[in-house]
């Protein structure tokens, strides 16, 4: 079994969201970078669990990013995984990123490709589906539970209005979310081992992005809270009806 886990770096969830260069770039000064939580907590940990059950499993991590993505990739390697590939390209659209990952996937011949359900910065929810389409593989989106039985995956996923259990033969692309695994933290042995795991840097293939971010905006500030006395709940109901007009 060969698994490819897609890993992205994202700003820490407590990072201040601000923009620079005329609101065209994320203000990254002083920002801590983390592994995108969906990639780390669910995709990577589930891949590691599969390897713990079947030692013959090989896990490769892939990221599309500049050299500053390496600390995050090392952290991911400290959790587990055999080697990592960094495609040396910075900030492009999801089509560009998916094309790079698909290229690595074609070369590596993976049975399973895990992506997170989205990154917590761009919220695209599109890399998994794009990679699946580029590889002509089935796509299990928004997966809550993932099990393997030989060459067949049994998955529970979120669909419109409920959950669905289904079976899909490998190869397969998956997007992971909460429920698929329990988050872990790397231990000392993992951190030491990660230092000597291979981290291969490859150059991107030529692809034209189809979208570009022109500018960012912040939402307008709230006017401030109106406090209502706990003994006067009826007043809240009146305000919600007459002033806010939401009930």
């Amino acid at each position, binding site marked *: 079994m060969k698994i490819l886990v897609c890993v992205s770096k994202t700003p820490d*969830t*407590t990072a201040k*969201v601000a923009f620079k260069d005329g609101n065209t770039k994320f203000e990254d000064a002083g920002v801590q970078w983390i592994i995108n939580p*969906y990639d780390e907590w669910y995709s990577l940990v589930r891949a590691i669990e599969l390897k713990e059950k079947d030692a013959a499993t090989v896990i490769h991590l892939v990221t599309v990013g500049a050299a500053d993505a390496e600390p995050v990739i090392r952290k991911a390697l400290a959790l587990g995984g055999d080697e990592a590939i960094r495609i040396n390209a910075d900030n492009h659209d*999801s*089509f560009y990123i*998916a094309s790079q990952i698909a290229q690595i996937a074609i070369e590596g011949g993976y049975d399973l490709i895990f992506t997170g359900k989205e990154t*917590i*910065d761009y*919220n*695209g*929810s*599109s890399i998994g*589906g*794009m990679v*699946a*389409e580029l590889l002509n593989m*089935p*796509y299990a*989106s928004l997966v*809550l539970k993932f099990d393997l039985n030989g060459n067949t995956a049994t998955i529970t996923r979120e*669909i*419109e*209005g*409920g*959950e*669905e*259990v*289904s*079976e*899909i*033969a490998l190869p397969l692309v998956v997007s992971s979310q*909460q*429920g698929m695994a329990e988050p872990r933290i790397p231990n000392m042995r993992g951190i030491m081992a990660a230092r000597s795991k291979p981290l291969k840097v490859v150059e991107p293939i030529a692809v034209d992005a*189809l*979208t*570009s*971010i*022109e500018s*960012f*905006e*912040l*939402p307008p500030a*709230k*006017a401030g*809270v*109106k*406090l*209502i*006395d*706990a003994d006067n*709940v*009826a007043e*809240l*109901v009146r*305000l*919600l009806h007459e002033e*806010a007009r*939401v*009930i």
Partner: protein
Amino acid sequence: MSVLIFIDQADGQIKKSSFEVMTYGVDVAKQLGTTAEALLLGKNTEDLSTLGKYGISKVYHVADDNLNNLDAQVYAQVIADAATQTNASVVIFSHNQTGKAVASRVAIKLKAGLVTGACALPNTTNGFVVKKTVFSGKAFANVSISSAIKVISVNPNSHTTTIGDGIAEVATLNISVPAPKVKVISVNKISGDISLSEADIVVSGGRGLKGPENWGIITDLAKVLGAATACSRPVSDSGWRPHHEHVGQTGIQVAPNLYIAIGISGAIQHLAGVNRSKVIVVINKDPEAPFFKAADYGIVGDAFEVVPKLTEEIKKFKAGA
């Protein structure tokens, strides 16, 4: 050139978010001076000509049995074929579970630029620029699409449905539907409950409720308001509530008209998922709780006293209204 709107359904019923994208698509078509057409896949027995009320001129219905369950690969093939046959230049989805599974595949098939999570109509005065939510709702990005064909998925609850008159032409398309590779074993519908991402009102509980046995006050309030229920991350992590109720940066992002937060401190990761709500009410016993800074209305008090009172007052209000 036309706008093609994908209509999603669950159990043969068209979803609220699909009516929103119909209006969105019709508005885009008006902007581009073209017609809005819609595509519906799988079994449906409703009178689809009534979709004309939403401004749709033609509804294509492909009713192959292989489309009754969602196989993203099969759906993408059919939708992309339909887009090509109908000469669509913009294809529109809801950014719901189906849209998340399919829109990206369709974009690849059509060599189209994709913007997911759109929250406003595109700006077409100079190019084609779509505003989308980023950083889980903490900010917006204006994304320019350079390809000839565009694929957009629209955030639920971000575009108001408008209804008028009109009758849509109903047609089918000659598309061969490939056999699905996904073998469905079972489907567990959360029927009866209001879907969280589509709900107009959400009542949400946090760790301040102390345990799952106390959730009655949340569900009672939700019931009188016709609201969906939600929770903070530690609540679903502890198994007090199911995972699909967890809102926030690493859960579901919601944008209801009214979000009522009870016993939730308002951590930045929680706010990220709810701060696009139109009105936020916070009930918390700690006046220093950070959530009050993001709220429109607040009550400082004990949830176990305040919430049942609120439920009673709403009941009175509903009875009088």
